[in-house]
């Protein structure tokens, strides 16, 4: 494909859009066309709903879509992590069964990795799967599951061998969430939102054909999912705003986005809302207090430096240079920024920080910052794990001594 030029690709996709794009189609109908033509995920392989284009050209395709206001395939939630995992490790049968419906948005996916007893230590999962006849029978509990309440399928990491060492006794499955053995309950967080679920498995069934990879290789498969998760962060990419967006299909897309984003309305607040700081300084009069000015400046220096560090990492990547330490620091820097924001917002808000909701400044947004920031340094890898990773992989310091070797049965657990 390397001999395909960007101009050729743009011409081809423009022609295809001119012949096919119709904002009065239903979302599923249109996305079906995208999946079958390969233009929905041009970077995917030709035989699986893609066109085998390099990523740079896939971006050009995206731009052409945006230029005419054409809707893309479904991308929200965990679905693309599921797709990436299946593309790499799934059987042809699984790809055939799941990938198209992922792209059309007909099926929603979730990820059953974390457990109450294994958070940072994901490979310590104790949810068990046992083969009985043609089915694997699943028992146990998962937690922090995004979207489980409206998911159709879940990526499940379960223990199938208790005598193997920790990482070698896990197997990866696709489990049907809509079955009697799967009980999804919302998990209310300290900020009052319930963005996640806890999920209980009681003799839930997985057909043999839904095993991904092979028995005992589950950790390897999960690492693929996690790598894609890290690459994509948890950004909810907003749909492009260019082009006319008044068709039936756009209304359907807006409703879909609204539904997908609804549980995460507080996510900007957990990052600290550094964007509000200068305005708040002026509106509260904190900009006249020398101490507050110092604290605000400290925060802004930190936030700007973190932003430029991320830009340095991206620039190095774009130039094809080996990644320097700046590429591994974003998560930890974000925690520092969020905590500093929380302190400065409190400092500027003063006694009003005792209030919440409509009683409080900015219709409760400030209060929501203060009670949401503690999530940042935990979600997606705690600060402590981040520091271990930085110390071991970037600074090349010795690994932690292990106490979880040998048969998993004998390893100390919660």
């Amino acid at each position, binding site marked *: 494909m390397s001999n395909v030029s960007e101009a050729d690709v743009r011409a081809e996709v423009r022609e295809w859009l001119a012949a096919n794009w119709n904002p009065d189609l239903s979302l599923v109908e249109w996305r079906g066309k995208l999946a079958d033509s390969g233009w929905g995920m041009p970077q995917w392989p030709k035989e699986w709903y893609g066109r085998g284009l390099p990523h740079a050209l896939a971006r050009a395709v995206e731009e052409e879509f945006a230029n005419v206001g054409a809707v893309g395939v479904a991308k929200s939630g965990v679905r693309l992590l599921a797709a990436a995992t299946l593309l790499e490790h799934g059987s042809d049968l699984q790809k055939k069964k799941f990938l198209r419906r992922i792209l059309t948005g007909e099926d929603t996916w979730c990820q059953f990795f974390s457990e109450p007893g294994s958070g940072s230590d994901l490979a310590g999962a104790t949810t068990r799967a046992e083969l009985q006849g043609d089915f694997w029978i699943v028992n146990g509990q998962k937690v922090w599951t995004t979207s489980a309440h409206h998911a159709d399928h879940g990526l499940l990491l379960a223990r199938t061998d208790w005598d193997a060492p920790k990482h070698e006794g896990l197997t990866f499955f696709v489990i049907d969430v809509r079955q009697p053995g799967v009980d999804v309950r919302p998990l209310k967080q300290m900020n009052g939102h319930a963005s996640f679920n806890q999920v209980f498995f009681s003799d839930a069934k997985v057909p043999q054909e839904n095993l991904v990879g092979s028995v005992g290789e589950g950790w390897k498969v999960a690492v693929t999912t996690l790598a894609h998760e890290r690459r994509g962060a948890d950004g909810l990419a907003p749909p492009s705003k260019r082009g006319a967006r008044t068709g039936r299909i756009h209304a359907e897309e807006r409703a879909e986005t609204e539904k997908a984003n609804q549980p995460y309305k507080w996510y900007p607040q957990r990052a600290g809302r550094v964007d509000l700081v200068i305005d708040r300084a002026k509106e509260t009069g904190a900009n006249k207090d020398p101490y507050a000015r110092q604290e605000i400046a400290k925060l802004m220096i930190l936030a700007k430096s973190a932003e430029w560090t991320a830009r340095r990492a991206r620039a190095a990547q774009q130039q094809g240079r080996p990644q320097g330490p700046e590429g591994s620091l974003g998560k*930890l820097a974000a925690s520092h920024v969020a905590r500093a924001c929380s302190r400065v917002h409190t400092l500027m808000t003063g006694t009003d920080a005792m209030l919440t909701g409509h009683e409080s400044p900015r219709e409760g947004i400030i209060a929501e910052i203060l009670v949401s920031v503690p999530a940042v340094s935990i979600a997606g890898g705690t600060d402590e794990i981040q520091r271990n990773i930085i110390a071991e992989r970037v600074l090349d310091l010795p690994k932690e001594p292990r106490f979880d070797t040998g048969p998993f049965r004998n390893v100390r657990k919660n």
Partner: protein
Amino acid sequence: MSTSEESRSEPKRRIQFAFTDEQEEFRSAVRRFLNDKSPTNEVRRLMATVEGYDPAVWRQLSEDLALPGIHIPEQYGGAGFGMVELCIVAEEFGRALLCAPYFSTAVLAANAILNAGTDAQKSVFLPDIAKGARLATLAITEPDGNWDPAGIKVVATRDADGFRLDGAKSYVVDGHTADLLIVAARAPATTGLEGLALFALDANAGGVVRRLLESMDPTRKIARIDFRGAHADLLGTLNDGAKPILRTLDQAAIALANEMVGGAQTLLGSAVDYSKLRVQFGRTIGSFQAIKHRLADMLLEVELAKSAAYYAAQAAAVNDPEWPALASLAKAAASEAYLHSAAECIQLHGGIGFTWDNDTHLWFKRAKSSEVFLGQPSYHRELLMQRWGV
């Protein structure tokens, strides 16, 4: 790489987040030179001398690498590069703690002449500076230690053949060895930023009394200079007032920020290396989480400060309107990161880190003195807020 003249006239160029291949090669060349010329035993030897530098090394870095004029336009005998390249030199010098009159001559004096001087004055002064044939420095701060030019008290009185300077300057970097002094002074009976101008005079002129101060950081020599009716020439015109002074100080703050992140990087490397060697309780101390996490935090702080220092240099190079604010931002960030790295590096070494024989204190002292040189972090944070209009 772009010339500094271009960068002044082309405000539309985008701020870069990566160095070019040429800039990376230039950095490597400077680093190789320093590895050879500035090992810590040399730093220790030179810091104990009055002059504080090795003339032979100065000649080599001038003649072989053209470093004093790296940012000076070619028409004035320089290499014609800009702020980014100047800051690469500063960072590498900070890393190696090179003892040389570079900050005074290239960063402070040359920039002051570029910012304030007439074409004729640039043609007189800059070629010698670029060649390394003339050492120069800039005297702004006075014995009260105030970095705000509004507080300048030295008075320049007009007389028949120029100006006479009266008053005292202090904290003048390499003031005792400089051949040429650039001095900020004010017209009689003016206050604040009004009536300020820069003046040039021979450091050995009559009415100039120079005294080397006992400095905490012996690798950076500072002097007090008293002017008693010393004859000086106006640099540029009287109408520019404080502008070239402020511009020079902002450029210096950016160069110093880059020098400081270079030093912080050395301290981080030293702390990491030692934690892999030192064994206690049957393990290298680098295997303890208490140590690993501190080193990870140190790395984060140093990288964040680097990003600010690099960004400020790039912004100044393309004359981004925000660059003076970024100078303060970068200076504050680098000051905190450098000093914290130095303190952490000593802590990680334990008792040996507090000894004279261990090299950490050399960088600690540079960190401490750089923290307040050109204005301490709180001063620059306040300046940042003002410049952002908060």
